[in-house]
């Protein structure tokens, strides 16, 4: 299937290379298709701009030569000022380097340079037992650990055609929605901080901490690492359901009170609206995923469009907005947060008092496959190929942040320099899962 047909009938997801060939992933009829091309050859990025970073990575890390790969944009002209920020920043954030080209206060062009958190995680895992590597996979990125672990578990389970019991699936859903909830509440806080509203950040940190404590009681880790395991869910998860539900209800009420204050703050909302507009066409051309896409008029949500676990049974309601500005992204995240709280409630109802079995034993065997999970920032894609002994031959991560980062730079064009923290934080993307 050529890429053009894949994009027409479905959705292009990204690309990577291994020692032999290039792989272009797309979603067609709810399943991930892998279109393979020769190692060297014609770049696809001229036709599909979203692939420019994927192909650049192939060139840099696999020594592949591609014809027609888009060249760096040279920005120069009278009255332009160029200045660089990073990789060391003033806040408690990950390292990235941003080159601003501005004319007066307005940003003409912004370049983002990454790789400062590049540890070489994919090559590090090559040759290791694929099941034992789940512990490492949970630690590729701390902001989307559950989504990635779930994708990884699903790939390994698909090698055995292993079915997961209903109770474990509902527990996984609760876990994934808790991950979305603690991320989104933090994102609301940092967006407020980006507009200088300190109270918003403090209040969000208070609520996030309560999520972290519930996470630890529910799944044994404040940020839910190692909760979703190949074959099931961590033993002793969700033991004290009555108390957890009561605390979650109180937390939900306080989140709603906080949202009333936030969205009722007219000065704050006037900063949020029309800042950092990401047009729908740009979002689609660059393959945006998650809240970044859905705030610009898109609808794609892995939970609805390539359903997994028990999501088809519960049918999450998509959160969407159309203005593509900071206000829309913040609104979509809040709507999703509320929906996560509802999904958690429904999943608890479905789970009832049923015991959750221990994870099934999964042995690493030969296989090749990909899986995609809706994380807090969008589709978290993981591809794995193992050898006859079940050792990792190639593991590749396409994270939602990796897909969305080029859009942050686009959303900044025409905005004033002091709004960069605000616009950036309305996306609040990770670096670790993109850099790897």
């Amino acid at each position, binding site marked *: 299937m050529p890429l053009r047909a894949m994009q027409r009938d479905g959705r292009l997801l990204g690309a990577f290379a291994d020692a032999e060939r290039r792989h272009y992933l797309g979603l067609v009829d709810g399943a991930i298709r892998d279109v393979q091309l020769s190692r060297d050859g014609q770049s696809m990025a001229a036709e599909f701009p979203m692939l420019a970073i994927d192909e650049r990575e192939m060139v840099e890390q696999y020594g592949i030569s591609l014809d027609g790969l888009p060249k760096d944009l040279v920005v120069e002209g009278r009255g332009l000022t160029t200045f660089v920020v990073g*990789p060391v920043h003033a806040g408690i954030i990950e390292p990235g380097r941003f080159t601003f080209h501005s004319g007066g206060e307005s940003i003409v062009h912004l370049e983002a340079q990454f790789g400062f958190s590049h540890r070489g995680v994919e090559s590090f895992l090559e040759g290791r037992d694929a099941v034992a590597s789940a512990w490492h996979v949970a630690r*590729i990125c701390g902001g989307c650990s559950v989504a990635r672990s779930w994708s990884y578990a699903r790939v390994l389970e698909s090698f055995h055609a292993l079915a997961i019991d209903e109770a474990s699936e509902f527990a996984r859903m609760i876990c994934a929605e808790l991950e979305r909830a603690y991320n989104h509440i933090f994102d609301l806080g940092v967006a407020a901080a980006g507009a200088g509203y300190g109270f918003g950040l403090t209040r969000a940190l208070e609520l996030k901490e309560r999520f972290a404590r519930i996470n630890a009681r529910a799944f044994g880790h404040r940020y839910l690492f190692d909760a979703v395991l190949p074959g099931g869910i961590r033993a002793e998860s969700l033991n004290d359901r009555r108390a957890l539900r009561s605390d979650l209800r109180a937390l939900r009420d306080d989140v709603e009170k906080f949202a009333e204050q936030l969205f009722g703050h007219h000065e704050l909302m006037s900063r949020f609206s029309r800042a950092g507009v990401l047009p729908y066409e740009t979002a689609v051309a660059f393959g945006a995923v998650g809240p970044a896409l859905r705030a610009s008029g898109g609808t794609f949500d892995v939970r609805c469009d390539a359903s997994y676990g028990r999501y088809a049974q519960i049918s999450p309601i998509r959160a969407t907005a159309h203005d593509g500005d900071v206000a829309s992204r913040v609104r979509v995240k809040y709507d999703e947060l509320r929906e996560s709280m509802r999904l958690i409630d429904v999943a608890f109802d479905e789970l009832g008092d049923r015991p959750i079995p221990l994870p099934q034993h999964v042995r690493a065997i030969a296989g090749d496959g990909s899986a995609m999970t809706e994380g807090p920032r969008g589709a978290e894609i993981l591809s794995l190929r193992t050898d006859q002994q079940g050792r990792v031959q190639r593991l590749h991560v396409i994270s939602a942040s990796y897909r969305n980062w080029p859009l942050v730079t686009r959303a900044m064009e025409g905005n004033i320099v002091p709004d960069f923290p605000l616009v950036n934080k309305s996306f609040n993307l990770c670096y*670790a899962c993109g850099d790897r």
Partner: protein
Amino acid sequence: MPGKPFDVSLGIRHLVCGSCNGCEHEVNALGAPQYDSTQYGYDIVASPRHADVLTVTGPMTEAMRDPALATRDAMAEPRIVVAVGDCAIGTGAWCNAGSAGAGAGGELDAEVHVPGCPPTPDAIIRGLHEAARLLDLRAGRKR
């Protein structure tokens, strides 16, 4: 002894050297009302020039090595480096991966080590108390 309110103040600069972001969750939590590290006079500052303490996370990556050394060396003496989390200490998931070092703490001569994946905010505050004590010793202050 540090621990009493406003007994001591620390300017803290935080530096990420290939962390997964888990440790950053917990350093950020120091600003949450449940921990509020400013009650001890501990404040995250924007520049290493303003800092007494450098908290570092991650195994150290090749790309961050030079910026990290430059950041530490921009700090005035006396200064203390605190290694936060298993990766920075040298026991974490990605230590010695292809483009990673054996721990940012070791490379930056950390004197305080806070283990955990990630360490809890309380553990990080314990580490900051220890950094404050070492700074007092170095400056010849008695409390």
